Every structure is written in structure tokens, then in C-alpha cells.
């Protein structure tokens, strides 16, 4: 068990890469579209206000759900691919 194999190393690197990608999207939809980039998106109208407002009150939450399920699905697949599932 304790032997630190290349397989395990690659699995962990794949996991960290995946997390990194997911967190970029996570930051983009909330801190990006919802807060900092809101003035840039002010021209895109959504139901009486702008896209930034929608992301701050709806879009970010919906994206978070997508991200967590995507991560769970990808990781559970990676577990099998690397033969490391429980």
C-alpha cells in the first residue's frame, strides 16, 4: 500500500488540474461576472437589469451546482481510470 507509484502521482496531478480549472470558472461567474466585470456587462440586458445582476443573484449559484456535479462525475471516472476507486 505504502509504495508511492507513478500511477498515484498522475492521479493526484489530474485531480489538482481539474480543481484548478473548476475554481477558475467558480471565480469567473461570481467575482468576475457578478462583481468586478459587472460594468463591462452592463450593456447586456436581462429582464429590466443587466447580466451582472443576474449572475450575482442567480447565475453564480446555478453555475456552482453545475461545477460540483461536473467535478464529482469527472473524479469518480478518474478513480476508475486509475484503478483507485473504493
Amino acid at each position, binding site marked *: *500500500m*505504502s509504495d*508511492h507509484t507513478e500511477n*498515484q502521482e498522475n*492521479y*493526484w496531478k489530474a*485531480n*489538482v488540474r481539474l*480543481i484548478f480549472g*473548476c*475554481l477558475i470558472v*467558480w471565480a469567473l461567474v*461570481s*467575482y468576475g461576472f*457578478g*462583481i*468586478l466585470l*459587472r*460594468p463591462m456587462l452592463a450593456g447586456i440586458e*436581462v*429582464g*429590466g*437589469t*443587466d447580466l*451582472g*445582476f*443576474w449572475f*450575482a*443573484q*442567480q447565475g*453564480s*449559484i*446555478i453555475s*456552482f*451546482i453545475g*461545477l*460540483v*456535479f461536473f*467535478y*464529482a462525475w469527472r*473524479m*469518480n471516472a478518474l*478513480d476508475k481510470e486509475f*484503478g*483507485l*476507486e*473504493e
Partner: protein
Amino acid sequence: MSQFTINLLFVGASFALYFGIAIWARAGSTKEFYVAGGGVHPVMNGMATAADWMSAASFISMAGLIAAGGYANSTFLMGWTGGYVLLAMLLAPYLRKFGKFTVPDFIGDRFYSRTARLVAVACLIIASVTYVIGQMTGAGVAFSRFLEVDKDTGLIIAAVVVFFYAVLGGMKGITYTQVAQYCVLIVAYTIPAVFISLQLTDTFIPAIGLFSEHTQSGMPLLQKLDEVVRELGFRDYTADVDNKLNMVLFTLSLMIGTAGLPHVIIRFFTVPKVADARWSAGWALVFIALLYLTAPAVASMARLNLMTTIYPEGPTANSIAYDERPDWIQTWEQTGLIKYEDKNGDGRIQFYNDTPAFAEEATARGWAGNELTVNRDILVLANPEIANLPGWVIGLIAAGGLAAALSTAAGLLLAISSAVSHDLIKGSINPDITEKGELLAARVSMFFAIIIATYLGMNPPGFAAQVVALAFGIAAASIFPALMMGIFSKRVNSKGAVLGMLAGLGCTLVYIFTYLGWFFIPGTNTLANTPDNWLFGVSPLSFGAIGAVINFAVAFIVSNMTEEVPQDVQDLVESVRYPKGAGGAVDH
């Protein structure tokens, strides 16, 4: 049937359900008491996590906060959901793989240090106790309003109910009651929201109604709301925020704090496998989002409803006469949560933003000051009455508010009692304690935790409003970074972790105390709590994120200057990273 009887019926029926579950799900072993035997289905756990997480603050106060602040308070929506992304990817699966009972368990083993474990216990207890006070007072208020008893009696009823199912059932009893409580609270929240959305926009999904046309005026709802509040001197509801740095840091503090709250983390110890922990975080977020996507709609619609109640002919025409005010205003006036004072003696209710910028227009209209104060917290509770919904909806809201407060209180009390019985008694004072003895110790510490929480709920320290900020600050600055480094770094050693936690915690506390008073004693603050005084415009409530950065930095610097992590601990880190082989790498 009177409203009181209906409320009693709804609340009584929901309590009977919780008691039934408690008797059915008694805990027989420490494993059942701490982690519900580790066999909870991921969807069930998601639902229980949602109830665990959504407190009286989410159910009662959040919509009111958003209604008052508009876009600026979207921070709560993003902050209290975005934390689950961090939890799902950075903590939950690995801590589930670690497979022990408490958060300090992991910190103690990973940093091979009793000091680290004790620091974690201290952070956990401070964060959870401050958080539980708010839940107990929330339950007390809900009882007193709906069951017409005084606040303290309400609180004692709440304590007895929690005592019964939490002490008896431990995590197992709490889990299944939380599932039931989630169902009660989400139905209670959604039904009035759907009716109000239909009345205002002809759309039955509130989250879509928020961005639809306001039927009466033919304008988009949010534009109509902006227009109405602007006429009365308030900031536009959708207006952008100037201090973006503070908004980002506040959201980040809430997210990191959410991911670091021990009572939420331990919920993920109850599922059978690592893969389940990942799915379960997703389900938790789905169930939380059902309320969080509805809340902003409730906020804006309730604000518009309130404005049109006071100004039935539009904000530029006369407001309503006090004698013609609707029944719900009268009901809530009795509780003192709505107050009216006829300052200009015209017998009408003037409700506007009393600021120097609006003074000229106010004088021109013959107004002598804002005459109505409305407590933000009544928005959700009064919603069914504002929208003229039948009495049973009000009964449902009563049961829902109580479910939200009790489910969170129970989760927090479990986190506190397991830290005391497992980490303090078994981990430090008496390691040879038998399984039976530990189970008894867990129940006794739960009992005392409830007594203390009830006492603090009855005599809330003057800073009740700030303590939640403190809980998030502590979780963000101490617990989250320690856990994350424990999993993602093999280099951080015990000295680094302990000093990191203390530095993050210390800086956060000092920053909060500087502006809110030392140990929250009013009047002892070093600097006035105004934006001009804040360091770089960062409010004390937003400091948790900076505390976390300090924690990370100190831990890395100290670790790199001191010894390597022992091989067996490095093996432990390896073992939590891979789902395969439960515990194998630790034992060799």
C-alpha cells in the same frame, strides 16, 4: 378556527414527526452518535446538510437583508453557496477518506500534535457557540410570535425539543430529523413566494418572475422597483457598488468560512464512500439553491409590495392614511417590529429615505421625517399576510422558521459535544475511556451544551448581531486553511500549522475587535466602525479572507524553516488523497 389554533396544529404536527424519528433512530454506538453509522445515502445527506446549513438567518433574515441592500447584498447569496464548491473539491472527499469522527481528529493526526488538536477544538467551540446563540434566539422569537408565549418560554420549549432528539439520537437522530425539517422549511418558503410571484408577474417560478414584467405597470419588475425607491430618496435597487474590493473580500470570507464550519464538514463523514461525499456536496447545493434562488425574488417582490402598500397611487402621490393601514401592519405593530410616528401630524404614513440629499424634496412635500420603521426580519414572516394568503400558509411559515432554527442548532450542538467528548475527553484527558463511557460523555456534554446555549439565548450578549460574523471569521482564518494545507501539502508541519492558525485567528480577532469593541464590549472599540477608518476600505466583517491568507503564509514560511514532516504522516496525507484502500497506508 383561529390563527393561533392553526399555528399550534402545524407546529405540533411537525414536532410529533421529529419525536417519532428520534425514537426510531436512537444511537447505540459512538459511531452512530458521531457519524450516524457512516451509512447515510448521499441524497439524504445532501438534504440533511441543507437543513443543517440553512439557519434562522437564511430562512428569516436573508431576504430582508437583500430587500434592504439590493444588489450590494448579493454577497450573501454568492458567499453562502460558493463555499460548497470549495468544500466539495478541497475538503469533503479527503476528510471522508480519513474516516474518523471530528475535524480536530484530522488536524491532530495530520499535524502529529496535541497542541494543534487543542487549538482546533478551541476554534471549533468558539465558532459553534457564537453561531448557536443566534439559532436559539431565532427559535425563541418564532415561538413567541406564532404560539403567543413570551420569548423565554419559547426558548425553553425549543431547548427541550432539541434535547430530546439530539441527545437520544446523536448524529443518526439529527440526520433523519434534518431531512424532515428540510422538507418542512422548503415547502414553507416556496408556497408564499409562488403566490406573490403570481400576483405581481403572472409567473409561478419566483426566480423567473424576478426578471419578468410587472403585470400592473407593464414595466420589468426590477425597473419598476428601481423607479419607486428612487422617487423616495433610496438608492436604486440594482445600483452597482463603489467599494468592489470590500464586496469581493466579504463574499470570499463568507465562502471560505462556509467551507470551514465544522458542523457542515462533519455531515460529509456520514456517507459510505468517497465518491458519495462528492455527489452529496452537489445534492446539498441543489437543495440549498432551491431556497437561495427564491430568496432574491422574495426580497425584491416584498420590497415592492411594501412600497405599493404605503403609496397605493404611486410614490409621487399621497401615501395612505394611518387609519386605513392594512391588518398586517396592525398585527406587527403589536410586536414592536413595525413602528409609526406621525411627525408632521397629517395622519398619513410617510416612508422614505431621510437623508440630507433628499431633504429639499421632503420639505417641499410637507414631510417632517421618515415616519415608519420596519424591522428587516419580518419580511419573510409577514409575507403571507402582505399577499393576503390563507391562514394555513402562516401556520406553515411558523413551522418552517422553527425547523430552520432547530435543525441548525442541533447540528451545531453535535459538533460541540463531539469535540468535547471525543477530542477533549477521549483524545486528551482519558484515552482509555470505554466505548460506552464515551457515548455517555457525548450525551452529557450535549446536555451541558444545550443548557449553555439556552442561557446565552435568554441573555444574549449585547453583540448578538456581530457574533455570526465572528463565527465566519474564525472558520475562514483558522479551520479552513489548516484542513486544506493538511491535504494539499506534505511540507506543512506541526509548528507551521499551529503558528499559522494562531496568526490567522489572532489578526482576524484584533481587526474585528478594533472596530466592533474589544470582546464586543460596546464603547471599547479603538476606532469608529466607519469606512474611512477601515484599512484599505476592508470592513471588519470581510477580514476572514485576509486572515486565511495570513494563516497560509505563516504556515508555509515557518514549515520551510523547520523540520520535515515525519514519513508516517506523509503516508497519511498520501492515503487521504486516494479513495482506494481504507486506512491501509496509515497502519503499515
